[in-house]
């Protein structure tokens, strides 16, 4: 994993000319974690999407430095793993197929053994040959974790990480979080205090669209 830092400068996003948030800035380096909090509709997911360059901000910039050299926006995804409710996996394929398909599309080169390991990590080992269509909500969420974790990304974006997970799933999520913070960065968008507490720094959105609090 590279030594990577990401920084957002004065981000602002409008939808139909209505500002959702503005003036959001933060810097994140290796081993740092950031919690994004705020009420429903305050712009947490929007912010995460912008950081993942799934959305382009109305103004402001997101920049990533890998080993001293800047990463162009369209290639940032290589260092980013994401888990989110609006991120869907392919229901007509099995868990295993989903992993191998996405791996190949990423240009990665993992072995079947790797996939197996990932799936058993999220305790889907027994169900690896079942179609995702037949998965329960929690099982789908686990699969998303496996997909995000596969490339060991430098930056992990978690939107509502506990959704659908049972106690054991949450434990899994927390260990994964710990592993990640050791060598990389994590940004969590959440409604729950527990998530905010485990992060070193926090931003809270909403309240007339301007961001309160600052990056680490």
């Amino acid at each position: 994993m590279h030594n990577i830092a990401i920084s957002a400068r004065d981000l602002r996003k409008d939808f139909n000319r209505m500002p959702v948030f503005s003036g959001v800035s933060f810097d994140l380096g290796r081993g740092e974690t950031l919690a994004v909090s705020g009420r429903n509709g305050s712009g947490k997911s929007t912010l995460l999407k912008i950081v993942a360059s799934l959305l382009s901000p109305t103004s402001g910039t997101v920049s990533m430095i890998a080993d001293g050299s800047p990463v162009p926006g369209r290639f940032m995804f290589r260092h980013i793993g994401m888990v989110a409710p609006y991120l869907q996996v392919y229901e007509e394929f099995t868990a295993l197929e989903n992993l191998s398909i996405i791996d190949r599309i990423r240009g990665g080169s993992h072995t079947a053994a790797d996939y197996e390991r990932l799936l058993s990590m999220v305790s889907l080992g027994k169900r690896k040959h079942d179609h995702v269509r037949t998965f329960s909500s929690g099982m789908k969420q686990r699969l998303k974790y496996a997909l995000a974790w596969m490339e060991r990304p430098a930056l992990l974006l978690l939107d509502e990480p506990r959704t659908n997970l049972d106690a054991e799933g949450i434990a899994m999520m927390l260990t994964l979080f710990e592993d990640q913070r050791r060598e990389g960065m994590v940004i969590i968008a959440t409604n729950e205090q527990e998530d905010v507490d485990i992060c070193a720094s926090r931003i809270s959105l909403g309240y007339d669209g301007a961001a309160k609090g600052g990056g680490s």
Partner: protein
Amino acid sequence: MSGRGFIGITAAVFRKDTSSELRTRYALNALFLFTVTTLSIILFSFQSATVPTQVHAGLLWVLIFFAAMSGLSRAFITEEDRGTILLLKLSTISTPVFYGKLLFNVLLLLALTTVLTVLYALVVPGFAVEGLWTLCTALFLGTVGLASASTIIGALIAKANARGTLYPVLSFPIVLPLLLTVIRATTTAMENPSWGAASGEYRVLLSYIVVINAASYLVFDFIWKD
């Protein structure tokens, strides 16, 4: 992104779409339904009637166009509707996705065109071909061009509503020049044995393919992000 990687990823996208289609059989079903039915209609209503070759050429391409309209839109629409497009965006850049799906559409349409033409030649009386190679060239170039146009328009449609009706509306004016040219080439193929007879048309078709793909390459990135 390294050349090899690029090819590999395009192939991966293509393989994904193919196996997904083989499972859900959405497009295949639609195409099957359409081909069978329309051909039977033609066959039925042409019974004794003798029609000029040009009409046959036109008819064949009307069918191919409609088939494309009912089969090729799916490529991007499903990704949008099911929210899997985000997964793709997090996994690679726009270009290989576009070319993967383009490849898928091209091959799908090529297969369809082949089947359609063979069946047409078999069942419809008075569809005699003089220049087989002219026909093949025309069909190939025409299909590739049509698939290219359909793909980029499909990518557009995926973001809009009222797709069912909008797709042909957006596509037709774009592919019209292609259709007219390829129909001419096909007509030539039915009347003139020499391959060179339609060389003018080949050139038009080729440049169309080049232009539309170049344009798609440039604009798809904008459809992709946002």
